């Protein structure tokens, strides 16, 4: 009887082995590459493409992306705006770059908050019987809360103080990530709890306990590594949900100021003229989908890499 994680733990070094396993996962490598590209693109893109995303250029409004030329040689296009402009002449590429920065930041931070809360609640509830009832009822309670009225309330109560503290944009950022994070940890908590309940009965945990491992070490060294795969899966889903929720909030007017682009808001603003200018929906939509998809694949690959069982299979 061996502890499946602990056995392959020390001699070769854990991380090189995980990296080797990860590299074998094609989807994860491609996903990681795309995600890297997107992150670098939104972070450094404005160094290459220095157009001001908020600059209005009414004469060049409603321009189409360059690729429209492939099927419509009369389309209104121009090299100054390779992905076209919106109805006020704002450059689509610059907006995608700047908007992506916000969307990714919101998604990542909100996801981290949700993961942190969800995992903590899940582990505590799974491990300690006396905490299980109260914590799971709390989870049910938060699950049952209607999100939108809650958001209205939170926005009403905290918008002014946060705005005074951090300024209109940063204040809204804090508000949005907190609200999204604190309303989307419940799935993670439930999944982690069920995984812990299952692991708790396994022999290696019994063994670890019998040699007197303290609860914290038990969690850190034995339980957490083995619950990594469901946590990673819910992390990828959480990132996607956070980006989408942010766009819904912006759409309702509780999000960022209207002149502060995010992918979600670009999408919501363009729905009306979807049939005339499909690219205005497709471009931010594709950006969101690609991000979410690549994070999903990345998570998939990471889970496989972390999971020693799938390892052994791949080694055989």
């Amino acid at each position: 009887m061996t502890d499946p994680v602990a056995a392959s733990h020390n001699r070769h070094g854990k991380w090189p082995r995980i990296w080797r396993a990860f590299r074998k996962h094609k989807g994860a490598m491609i996903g990681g590459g795309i995600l890297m590209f997107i992150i670098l693109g939104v972070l450094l893109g404005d160094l290459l493409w220095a157009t001001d995303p908020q600059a209005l250029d009414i004469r060049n409004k409603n321009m189409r992306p360059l690729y429209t030329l492939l099927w419509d040689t009369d389309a209104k296009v121009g090299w100054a705006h390779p992905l076209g402009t919106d109805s006020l002449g704002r450059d689509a590429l610059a907006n995608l770059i700047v908007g992506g920065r916000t969307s990714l930041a919101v998604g990542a931070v909100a996801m981290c908050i949700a993961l942190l809360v969800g995992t903590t609640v899940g582990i505590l509830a799974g491990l300690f019987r006396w905490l299980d009832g109260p914590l799971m009822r709390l989870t049910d309670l938060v699950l049952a809360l209607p999100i939108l009225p809650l958001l209205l309330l939170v926005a009403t109560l905290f918008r002014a103080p946060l705005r005074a503290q951090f300024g209109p944009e940063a204040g809204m950022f804090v508000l949005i990530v907190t609200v999204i994070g604190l309303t989307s940890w419940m799935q993670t908590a439930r999944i982690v709890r069920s995984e812990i309940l299952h692991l708790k009965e396994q022999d290696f945990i019994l063994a670890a306990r019998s040699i007197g491992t303290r609860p914290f070490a038990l969690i850190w060294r034995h339980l957490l590594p083995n619950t990594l795969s469901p946590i990673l899966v819910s992390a990828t889903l959480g990132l996607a949900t956070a980006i989408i929720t942010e766009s819904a909030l912006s759409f309702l007017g509780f999000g960022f100021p209207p002149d502060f682009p995010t992918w979600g808001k670009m999408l919501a603003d363009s729905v009306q003229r979807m049939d005339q200018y499909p690219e205005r929906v497709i471009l931010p939509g594709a950006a969101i989908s690609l991000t979410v998809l690549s994070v999903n694949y990345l998570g998939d690959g990471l889970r496989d890499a972390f999971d020693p069982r799938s390892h052994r299979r791949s080694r055989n």
Partner: protein
Amino acid sequence: MKLSSTLLSLGTVCFFASTATAERGSDGHVKILFWQAPSTLNPFQSGGAKDNEAASLVLEPLGRYDPNGALVPYLAQHIPTVANGGVANDLTSITWTLKPDLMWSDGTPVTSEDVKFSADYCMHPDAGCSQLAKFDGVETVEIIDAYTVKVNFAAPRPNPYGPFMGGQSPILQKAQFQDCLGARAIECVAQNFAPIGTGPFTVKEFRPNDVISFEANPNYRDATKPAFETLTLKGGGDATAAGRAVLETGEFDYAWNLQLAPDVLAKMADVGIGKPIAAFGTTVERLEMNLTDPNPDLDKNIRATREAPHPFLTDMNVRKALSMAIDRSLLVEIGYGPTGRPTCNLVPGPAYYASDNTACLTQDIAGANRLLDAAGWVRGTDGVRTKDGQRLSILFQTSTNNVRQEFQALIKHWWNELGVETELRNINASIYFGADANSPDTFQKFYADVAMHANNYDGTDPQTYLAMYRCGNEPKPSRQWQGENINRFCDPAYDTLIDTLSQTSDLETRYDLAKRMNDMLTKDSYVVVPLIDRGRVSAHANSLGGVLMNSWDSELWNIADWHRIE
């Protein structure tokens, strides 16, 4: 200008009259599409404009409003005024005289009994009449003779044209409805679905919330009208489908109320078989300047009340410069197309109430900059103007709506060129217009420096609308933040004019007073900065002639004159 347009419209009417075929029913069938289906043909029981418009094919009032908002006699011989003795000098009564020899569509004569009955029907305490407001202040309706009725008011009424005027207050046939008084009004389904009227058409078949078939009224007072033998009014669908049916596929001749984005509508109109028509009423999209300080650090009983004057919007030069920087034509082009037109007036119509205030229509950013320079607002190192340590930094809020957010972006852009810093905010419409005294985000609370939204008034008389800006009528904590004077405007001279207006009956004087009050709020003070006069849009096939879009009465007000053109 005004004379020439009157002459022009007279000319148009003559033209239509001469081209219209001189025989009733010679133009066959006409098809009208209402994307909200009518559910009754009795305006007194109606749920809204769709019912009143459909009913106007059959039922007629004593007088209607024409597209300019002027009063036109229908069943009455003429419009009663103080000058012709129809309205009492003390403004407590109005006397209407019916045209002689009027017939209901069943061949019986129309008499003053029917007029009085219509008032009794609506004013019955158990009737739940939807148009009761039209009879506001009416004490009695007396029959003078078979063709004359006198409406007595409890108090002097400078605008006595509530009862029996316009599509919402038609005349019902007493013989048909006399058993339908009071609580039984709603039970008279047969009558409500097929009222006997005096209008150009009669009901052949009514299928509620679906289709109504009409036939030409054989007893209509003009023997040559209507030009159409039969009429179908189809209900249901949505505005987009209705627009397509008239402008793209030609299945229908007329589509009502097309609330569509301008480019969507323009694309449909490009097909070339029909055209959208707009009529302008009283809805004005405007910027509201807050004359009080919305600073969140202030005590909540003082914040945004007149006890805390605004730090810089109280400077008229700033308000004027903000208005001068705006290119209203561009806003119309982007947001409304043919359904909007630039305006500088709070009261954009009816024409005789509209001030000739057009100075704001030309954008003048250089001039606005000079104005701010002269007023002592100096640009700082960050480009934002300051004076005595006060930065020109504006929080600009509106409701969440695509068009409004585009407007915000444009206006921010222009204000930046003035050296004014703008922070934009948009608020969910149901909260912004929700009037909840506990929410900080309502338009009444006005916790912002500038707000953008639209407002309008009902009918053709702006008295109550202008009276909203009375000093003391502003939202404030002691009134649970209710009130219409949301700019917190306060001018004793203006209040005096409100009182004068409410005691004046002479129409010319009323027009002048209303224009002066409009100017005091707009071009003299820039407290209200009007942007766009928003209209209502319908569409008709190119083969349909005689359509005169009307926003003051039923759109089908002159259906008797509609005809087929090649």
